[in-house]
């Protein structure tokens, strides 16, 4: 880990769904160019952490900063413009919009995003389905599209929520390669994942979450020596 200021920083973040207290003081940081994975069982607050960063959960306290800028003050539609791309759980493809429309939907938030042609170079199968409604795509195609549409926006930081969930092993493999490519291009990635074997191929560091808190923080090199703890906490 470098000594430079983190790109994304969370300090003692609490969040609530109505009366339900979901995050109990999450502290973590992600540095530019890093790939960081949040591990944990269902319901420990991984998705909630991403939603709190994006501002989709409004009832939150603590500090959330991106490039030193306080994200807590921004209205929901300004967060993305800080330069963050969001790939939500269950992909969030708009069923009534075509592939082209889904791709074009998220506003450009920074210069240097990929052109549609570059994106189709990376995702040739999407190009064949440009005119299909998003609802008619397979799960794998939807996941590719969910990632692809963020590459157009110029965001250099991606938040991905379980991009491999429910997908066939061959598709998981392709998503792994794709994330590897994005990482090698210098993108910063915060990944929520249950599948730590998948995550271990691309992640630099891990945060392990339980009961709305981060309980461990370790680099990928320590993964093997932490197996006992991981099996215990993740129940795998």
């Amino acid at each position, binding site marked *: 880990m470098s000594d430079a200021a983190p790109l994304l920083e969370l300090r003692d973040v609490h969040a609530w769904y109505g009366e339900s207290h979901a995050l109990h003081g999450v502290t973590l940081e992600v540095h530019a160019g890093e790939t960081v994975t949040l591990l944990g069982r269902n319901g420990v607050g991984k998705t909630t952490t991403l939603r709190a960063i994006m501002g989709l959960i409004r009832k939150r306290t603590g500090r959330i900063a991106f490039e030193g800028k306080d994200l807590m003050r921004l209205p929901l539609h300004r967060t993305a413009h800080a330069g963050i791309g969001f790939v939500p759980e269950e992909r969030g493809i708009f069923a009534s919009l075509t592939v082209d429309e889904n791709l074009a*939907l998220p506003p450009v938030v920074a210069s240097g995003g990929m052109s549609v042609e570059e994106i189709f170079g990376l995702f040739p199968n999407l190009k064949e389905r440009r005119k299909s409604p998003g609802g008619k795509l397979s799960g794998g195609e939807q996941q590719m599209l969910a990632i692809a549409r963020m590459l157009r926006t110029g965001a250099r930081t991606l938040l991905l929520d379980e991009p491999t969930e429910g997908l066939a092993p061959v598709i998981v493999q392709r998503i792994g390669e794709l994330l590897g490519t994005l990482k090698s291009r210098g993108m910063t990635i915060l990944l929520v994942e249950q599948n730590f074997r998948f995550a271990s191929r691309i992640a630099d560091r891990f945060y392990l979450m339980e009961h709305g808190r981060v309980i461990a923080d370790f680099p990928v090199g320590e993964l093997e020596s932490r197996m006992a703890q991981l099996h215990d906490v993740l129940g795998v």
Partner: protein
Amino acid sequence: MITILGIPIQAFLGQLLVGLINGSFYAMLSLGLAVIFGLLRVINFAHGAQYMLGAFVGYLLLVQLGVGYWPALLLAPIIVGISGIVVERLALARLYDVDPLYGLLFTFGLALVLEGIFRYYFGVSGNPYPVPPLLAGGTNLGFMFLPNYRGWVVIASLIFCLGTWLVIEKTKLGSYLRAATENRSLVQAFGVNVPLLLTLTYGLGSALAGLAGILAAPVYQVSPLMGSNLIIVVFAVVVVGGMGSILGAIVTGYLLGVAEGLTKVFYPEASNIVVFVIMAIVLLIRPAGLFGKEA
């Protein structure tokens, strides 16, 4: 004399035309309701009052300022649309986070207040609005006599409905609207200014109602109650078409207008209830409406 099922063809076509005219207004009004409901999740009970407002704006422009039909056709929807934007910003926008019932109650109350104000100043008897000279008179089609203005209403409403549909289906703004109808918060998280989109959508829906109102002014009398007479049927149209379905609202509007007109020919006693009978049957067979998606 040519007859269809024992009915003189003139009577048949005459009622078909009346049905198409009514259907034109049903289509334009239910289209606005469907757009508003789809995105804002607000059942806009003020829609009939906004239609009435459009007719009155046209009427007042004429009698107070001497502004004629054609400028009014542009001004009335703009004025009603702006009033809609003000209403959304001041009131509706504060109700999105509470039970949808509040939005319904608010718009219902707004409709009553608007109607009350116009009743106070203009009474309940209608005020005539002249047909613009360009469209005065009629055309003999050989088999029937078509008043020019009524032909214009059918064509104009088709153009406006089709235009609105194209904007929603084919433009970038329309894709924002459709996406936000599916998942509002995600569209906003992607960086789209959804609160602004909601305001503009309510303005657009109101403007469509105002446009229908000024189109209707020369056909019906301009009266404070003209909206509440129509809006109940329009709600039935939206339900039959499928809540929130744009195309469903348009097609169902014309279909039910024609069904109503033809019922007047074959069984006049039933013409006032036929729309509701159709609604009941559709709800039994397809609860989501003809064009709605099953939830």
